[in-house]
């Protein structure tokens, strides 16, 4: 196998992340995800598959959600990027983040930043009338039913399988009544039949 030495060509990229301007001087092969995690110390955005298959790396670029593992950092020169850190921090959580805590919309927490960012952007998509695979009508306003939410969130895998809590958190953040007991405060503890 021929291996000719190659110089390390770096590339300068300007990214505005959560309102702060950053200069990144990195290998041009650096993904937006790795730039965030390993060049800028923003570990909130997670790497689950590095192939656009799991959604853990979801960020917003100019307000729209993308898989940051499928984007090179240098492709986003000059772009406005929002990561989970930009939505809110402990003590000052965004309504979506807070709803995820209250509805136990996570377990291990690894897919969670991607879920939260994706859900936040998804509400905007629905408001703009973007239809989905389960929409009955492509031209009318989108009613965010549980099925619409589930479909629109199916690009974000959760192996702990917190989906019922995730859906309820999104319903809550959208100002709707959560469904089923996953939104209830107390699980039923049946007293009869106790040993």
């Amino acid at each position, binding site marked *: 196998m021929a291996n000719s030495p190659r110089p390390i060509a770096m590339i300068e990229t300007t990214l505005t992340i959560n309102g702060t301007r950053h200069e990144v001087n990195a290998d041009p*092969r650096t993904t937006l995800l790795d730039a965030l995690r390993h060049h800028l110390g923003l570990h909130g955005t997670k790497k689950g598959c590095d192939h656009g298959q799991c959604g853990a790396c979801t960020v917003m670029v100019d307000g729209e959600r993308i898989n940051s593992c499928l984007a090179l950092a240098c492709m986003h020169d000059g772009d406005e990027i929002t990561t989970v850190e930009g939505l809110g921090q402990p003590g000052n959580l965004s309504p979506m983040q807070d709803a*995820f805590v209250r509805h136990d919309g996570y377990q291990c*927490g*690894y897919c969670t930043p991607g879920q939260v960012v994706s859900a936040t952007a998804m509400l905007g998509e629905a408001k703009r009338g973007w239809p989905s695979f389960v929409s009955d009508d492509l031209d009318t306003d989108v009613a965010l039913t549980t099925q619409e939410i589930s479909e629109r969130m199916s690009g*974000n*895998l959760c*192996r702990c399988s917190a989906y019922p809590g995730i859906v309820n958190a999104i319903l809550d953040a959208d100002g709707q009544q959560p469904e089923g007991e996953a939104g209830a405060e107390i699980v039923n503890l049946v007293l*009869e*039949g106790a040993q």
Partner: protein
Amino acid sequence: MDLSNLNPFSSSDHRETGHLKMDKPDTSRRLDEMQQGVISKSLNRPDGPLKVSGTARYAAEAEADDMATGVLVGAIIPKGRVVSIDEDAAMKMPGVLGVFHGKKLLRNPAQGTANQAPIQPDGEVSYMGQPVALVVAESFEQARDAAITLAITYEEDDDGVFDPKIAEKEKPDGKQIDQGDFDAAMRDAAATVDSRYTTPVQSSAPMEPHASVAQWNGDQLTLHGSYQMLNYNKNELADSLGIDVKNVRILAPYVGGGFGSKLGIAPEAVAAALAAKALERPVRVAMSRRTVFETTMRRSETSQRVQLAADKTGKLLGLAHHASVSNLPDEGFTEPVAAATHFLYGGGSRRFTYEVARLNRSCAGSVRAPGEAVGMLALESAMDELAHELDIDPIELRVRNMPEKHPESDIPYSARNFEDCLRQGAKRFGWADRRPVPASRREGDWWIGVGVAGAARSNILGESKALVTLNADGTALVETDMTDIGTGTYTILAQIAAEMLGLPLEKVTVSLGDSELPEGPGSGGSWGAQSSGSSVYLACEAIRTKVAKALGCAAEDLTLKDGIATGGNNRKPLADLLDGPIAQEGHIEPGATMENFDQAGYGAHFAEVAVNAITGETRVRRMLGVFAAGRILNAQTARSQCHGGMIWGIGGALHEELHHDTRDGHMVNGDLAEYHVPVNLDVPQLDVLFIHQRDDHANPIQAKGIGELGISGAGAAITNAIFNATGVRVRDYPATLDKILPYLPD
């Protein structure tokens, strides 16, 4: 057993020492006497705000100056050996710092609780994808490039074994059981079932890929790792490296899912440690998703034959469960397929056989509920077949076959409530509306049906220690090397300490995931909550004894609530009562109650499915799980665990199937696009109900494991519902549309 002869306080030494060996049931149920009112409540996780804001740090996110990055290189032959590696060419590539291979690399992860190094094959290759080198460079991009182009010369053997159907099988000693005259039972029965079921290879696929950051300070190794059982992992890592365990520290405060795949030390940890030592720099190695699939544990495929012999009332006379599974050569783990079959149902004549094929496939090990997760798919389908054969309600059939004592060992059960789970579930689910004749309910293009299955998962108590410190300012600290892999350990340990010490939850801090802290049980086998929780409880009991002495009352008379101690005629805030912090270690050990009583969590799954009459596609419309698992420590996190198990049940029933090519053993679909874990739209809102239960034989907090109970049997409720909807009995999991469509009724 007559409990009245047992003085609940006979072993109350633990209230002084904080140590308890579980030789007798503890009927004191002390947690029920406490006053703070936080135990069992649906409280939010204290670690939640960190997780939703991206602040919680996982293994690969540890930072250090001068960090280098390593990428593992997998073998491209299934069997043979590495002859040479062209290190020189790699070292000429930009940024490359080193290529590491040789005697210490691991073939595969350690099996759960191995406590020693797994096989270190020194270049011998046993499966495709086996890590044979680590390339380390200044950056990830450089390391990845050099790893992809690394030239390795192999000598390939031509005697690899890849197909479990034609492989020779071993029959492990001690796993074959023949009780009574099973053949006679089958011969004499009014009704029999004799069915073969298959389940495919499955993968844990936790969302966080396995990762380690290794850093040396002289002879001291610190490893930030994504691991479930630090008490074992530190020994496995030290043994792999040939160093004293005193020189190893593992940190795992947050673990992005495990499900068994992070039980044992894995190749990336050892490789990172070796490279970091040689380079005298910190090294980060995060597995790629494909590497996770290929080099961490898979669940073995199974071929199972279940035979049931019953009289005309449905009472079992005989029961047999035969299992054929596989693993790599020289791996001790055998998927314990019939784990629940041994104790769930009666039938005097019983036969169990196991056979293991030695394959050149990725390593088989524990995946969520090893044994029950796949074994109960077969057993609970067979029970449904028997119910149909005899025209008996499937719930009644199960109730008629609940044995008085363990049908093989003849020991009694601890708290069970299996019938309550089925009956309560039937009521809540609307089972009475079920139409017993298959394919009798149609809505538009959809056939609708319902199914039920039992759930059971053995309960285990593991030795565990925890240090609890009560401070005079009314705060407390819980410290143990136990992990929280999403299970809720931070939350429930805080709740136990808060309840026992009479503190609001937010006054309790829990520190986990540091191997230098007192040794907990680790997360695995669903034993974490009750084992670690018991050690925290015992530490708190010892603290209460000291507080009672300071207050001048008996420990039994002490009330602690909201930071105020009351007892005798005294009432004092902790701040006035205590001179300084009280620190106590709690230590629980399993004892005779685990030998003398069969302990398990029980449950019942109910599912309603819709099967499309045109495509054969199955959608789960609703699902209910009812569980009896001792004291529920936090209803919300327990429910989330059950959701997880039930959704894994959906995956096992309908989607998940990892393929290995039978020509060369290579993994065909080792990524998250082609290995189909359930996605949000696959899952309806799920209903979970807990039966109020206290298991005094289990441990002093009367709690039992729940993380794996939720998956046990869940998928069978779905395939039983498919049968009820369509009359099609799918015995080869997953029930994809190709197995249903040709047989649908007109």
